[in-house]
């Protein structure tokens, strides 16, 4: 089936099987390997990307469902000249250890701050509650998101 998905502002026309998952479309068809493919059961959140500006778990969405829609991945967070404050925060606060959950965590964090620029710690924990850090490094992830909120009001 012929589809066109707009990923990080670029249109990608491709012919895909209907059963192809969005995460594999991004990684294997487009070479955008920033989004990680984790549990495959919509539990871990490593694959979170934005679909029409809303975070979703891309292991449980078909690529054909994204036809004609906008997808934003972690590769789309930084501008040409600088990292997004959320990315800076993860560096500044040691928000990543092995880095596997990081892309999904950052996409959800960016979305949280866009909608709630000054979240409480509890709100941060709730926002990432569907995402698993296999290093169990949640303290620093939460700290990173709160750091991002304090810098530039979290706005890129």
């Amino acid at each position, binding site marked *: 089936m012929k589809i066109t998905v707009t990923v990080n502002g670029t249109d990608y026309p491709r012919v895909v099987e209907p*059963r192809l*998952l969005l995460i594999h479309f991004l990684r294997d068809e487009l070479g955008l390997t920033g989004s990680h493919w984790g549990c495959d059961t*919509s539990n871990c959140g490593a694959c979170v990307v934005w679909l029409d500006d*809303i975070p*979703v778990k891309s292991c449980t*969405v078909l690529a054909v469902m994204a036809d004609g829609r906008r997808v934003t991945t972690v590769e789309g967070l930084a501008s040409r000249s600088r990292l997004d404050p959320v990315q800076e925060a993860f560096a500044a606060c040691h928000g990543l250890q092995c880095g596997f959950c990081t892309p999904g965590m950052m996409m959800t964090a960016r979305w949280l701050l866009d909608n709630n620029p000054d979240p409480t710690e509890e709100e941060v924990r709730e*926002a990432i*509650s569907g995402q698993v850090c296999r290093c169990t490094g949640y303290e620093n992830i939460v700290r990173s998101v709160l750091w991002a909120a304090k810098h530039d009001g979290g706005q890129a």
Partner: protein
Amino acid sequence: MQVPAQVEYERATSVPHAIALLSRYAPGARVLAGGHSLIPMMKLRLAQPEVLVDINGITDLRYIQRSGHELRIGALARHADLLASPLAGEHFAILHDAERVIADPVVRNWGNVGGSLCQADPSEDLSAAFAALKGSMLIAGADGSRQVSARAFHTGPYETVVGDAEMLTEIRVPIRPGSGSAYLKVMRRAGDWPVGAAAAAVWLANGVIADVGIGLTAVGASHFVAAEAEEFLRGQRADATAFARAGQIAAEHCHPVTDQRGPADYKRHLVRELTTRVLATAVARARGPASSKGLAR
């Protein structure tokens, strides 16, 4: 690596179009809404449809609105929509209670109300909530729409009355005076399916329980309903003794099974305790904000 088997894909642009597609491919077609249950089942070959009919483009099925004395929820309303809806929360606090504990915020962004109900998982939270509220489901087919009580919607685990060439389009909940409602769920970790959960809606008149709905999730209650406990409560004074007795009756009449989430006797204990508590919260809410402080969660 888990991938679904080969499948055809059609995109419906309207309800009649979806019905036509489902009719054409019946019984091999399945409606694809959020897909957050269907796609994992396809990966495991627990579901193997020949054709997926994607209804996400039918955007006019995504609404939450009041029409007369009813709350109407479009089948494509996302879980996040229901959780964020002041209208739903104002009339039916139970829906916000339940949505707050359904999966996680990211799943709630894409999973939707109609899909959850049609999936008919015995552990699904909204089924018990709508059963307690005595809502109904509007099902569209080739010959028009029919309305089915929420309590007659499910015919068994993963089974509903929705036919191969039909689709759920709307959920309707009557708005009646003197009502309060609540949902309480015990789960092993954030976002998990329930070990057990209870739903209650009460309608008070002169301090007496004029009508009541009690729903139970994941504990083998027929149609998600604790019918015997409801029968006992109707006409009773709304007090702690009555709630406790209703909890006892609900526990006696449900059929939980031992599984990886817990032993049957523990689940039965949960039913008694959760039913008792959820009734108290629902009644407190029915009496007004002043008396329900601190009981909501």
